[in-house]
């Protein structure tokens, strides 16, 4: 299998799907002439032309709403937000319109669109530009939320997201775009709403998604050197959440840590923790531990930023804690 970057994987998914279906168009800031603020849409303008790869002014509420409207009548928009922090400007269109249309119309309408872009902190971008916002979207019935952690997953999941007839929030990361990984050569898709086991293990279950998958796999390596075999479980789609494999894993390992770079309060991590606690209650040998962002707006300072996020050390500590090891 060829190794490509996360960025290229997404770019391939976009190009392949646009090739397949002319109802798909991309709109967003700097997606066309500039080739993408993070170069994810590189070459698409040249390939598909300016009718389908469209530079928008800084009008997130406007162009996201345009996407919803176009989707209601049969197009399949892909709205790129420069980062998900800016999707907050469009949150009304996403939550009140995209997520509700199917239900409110009693099934008459559908909104087949993807809203995608980087989510979560990058490097020292401070409070408004460093937010992992998946829990907010995952809170909303009517939305699907996908957060891939590898190039292969990104490509396969994005293709499914584009083909899905529901509004899908697809969250990437600035700091993952350069991440390399093996990606199958031919056409493939990965279904939404299916949890994946990224590493087999018998001693502890560590649940992670998105950027945290790499960190947790690294932690699993360290734990292995201590004789602890961690099972790393990646839900990939946060809503709908396929909790079956997570619960199955915990039934085997009896211990669970959930790692997420979002805030802890009312979060995806706390939801997973709750489901494990209730569905595998009799199997747990220790309370589920969460490793999340600190409950603070992101400080600019580099050291503070690092310490406000899950770190290798924090993951190891949590693992040791549920294993009652020091």
């Amino acid at each position, binding site marked *: 299998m060829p190794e490509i970057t996360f960025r290229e994987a997404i770019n391939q998914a976009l190009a392949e799907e646009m090739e397949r279906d002319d109802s798909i168009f991309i709109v967003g800031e700097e997606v066309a002439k500039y080739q993408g603020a993070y170069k994810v849409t590189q070459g698409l303008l040249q390939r598909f032309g300016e009718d389908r790869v469209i530079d928008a002014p800084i009008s*997130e509420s406007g162009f996201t709403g345009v996407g919803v409207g176009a989707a209601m009548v049969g197009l399949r928009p892909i709205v790129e937000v420069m980062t998900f922090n*800016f999707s*907050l400007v469009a949150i009304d269109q996403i939550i009140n319109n995209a997520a509700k249309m199917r239900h409110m119309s009693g099934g008459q309408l559908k909104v087949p669109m993807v809203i995608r872009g980087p989510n979560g902190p990058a490097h020292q971008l401070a*409070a408004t530009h460093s937010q992992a916002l998946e829990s907010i979207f995952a809170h909303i019935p009517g939305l699907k939320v996908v957060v891939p952690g590898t190039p292969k997953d990104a490509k396969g999941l994005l293709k499914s997201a584009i083909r899905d007839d529901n509004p899908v929030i697809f969250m990437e990361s600035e700091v993952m775009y350069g991440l390399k990984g093996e990606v199958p050569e031919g056409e493939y898709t990965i279904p939404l709403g299916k949890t994946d086991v990224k590493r087999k293990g018998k001693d502890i279950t560590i649940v992670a998604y998105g950027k945290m998958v790499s960190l947790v796999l690294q932690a699993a390596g360290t734990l292995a050197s201590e004789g602890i075999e961690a099972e790393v479980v990646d839900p990939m789609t946060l809503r709908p959440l396929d909790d079956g494999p997570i619960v199955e894993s915990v039934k085997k390992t009896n211990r669970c840590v959930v790692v997420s770079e979002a805030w802890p309060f009312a979060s995806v991590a706390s939801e997973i923790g709750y489901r494990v606690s209730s569905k595998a209650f009799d199997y747990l040998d220790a309370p589920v531990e969460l490793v999340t962002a600190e409950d603070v707006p992101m*400080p600019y300072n580099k050291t503070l930023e690092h310490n406000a996020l899950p770190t290798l050390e924090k993951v190891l500590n949590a693992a040791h804690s549920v294993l009652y090891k020091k």
Partner: protein
Amino acid sequence: MSDYAIETNKSDGFLKEEYLSLGRARLVEMYRTMVLIRRFEEAAAKAYSMQKIGGFLHLYIGQEAVAVGAVAALRDDDYLITAYRDHGHAIARGTDPKKLMAELFGKYTGSSKGKGGSMHFFDAQRNMLGGHAIVGAQVPLGTGIAFKAKYRKEDRVCLTFLGDAAMNQGAFHEALNLAALWKLPVVYIVENNMYGMGTAVDRASAVTELHKRGCAYGIEGMVADGMNVFAVYDAVKEAARKARELSLPTLLEVRTYRYRGHSMSDPDSIYRTKQEVEEEKQRDPIEQMKKFLLGGKIATQKEIDTVEEDVKKIVAECVEFAEKSPEPPLESMYDDIYV
């Protein structure tokens, strides 16, 4: 090249008697502030390349006349608020540049104790209510600040800076309507540097005469040369007067240019030519001001040189202060979340 770039200013346009009435000292001070902003930012760019500064660093180089001319036209008790390209505004307002450099370095002695960085310079004491990083977000805030001035029957105004591209946000339009509807003492000053990131104004705005975009709300538009500190000064003075005396908002477009990329990581060659940048530099605001000072015999070459030396020293002190300042303690991440 954007199709509505304005004519290069002839330096004789500067020589108006009325500017002389500002007084020699004040005029040299305005020049000094522009030079300070530029050298401060050059030092910041250098520190950024040495990774002493992180995150996004948006340089104001080329636009100095806007902040300096506009702030000079305000009273100390007037308010101002701006976007993330905020170094010039804070320096023009008189914030200690040491604190600002320390903030860029993420230090505890910084204006936001290392929590804000480049995009979030605040100096509440000087009524500088921040740099704001969500495009357009500060426009309703500036409007609300003006609301307070009116509510309290103070004759203060709020100068609300924004970029050309920020005019395309809904927040801008909602705020302008409110300001007109409620007759608020606010001056919206659009720093039209011809681009929002890589997108030229005519690719983002259906109407490229940006000052005309207030007409939908019955807000008077003005336009001024943003490379000429006095043109900015005059325009803001007049707009602030209308705000203060008549409680009327104004939409002032100043035409300027940013010499550097959008931020330190922006390859601007994708969307503009070197030639365009070089052409724009011909109307450099600092050079024009210098010509005015020398030509009008307001300052001697020696005084100009002294400004340069003084500023160099100040900037070196800023960097040293920032380097030597302590890191914020880890626990401080929990400070200042609630009052």
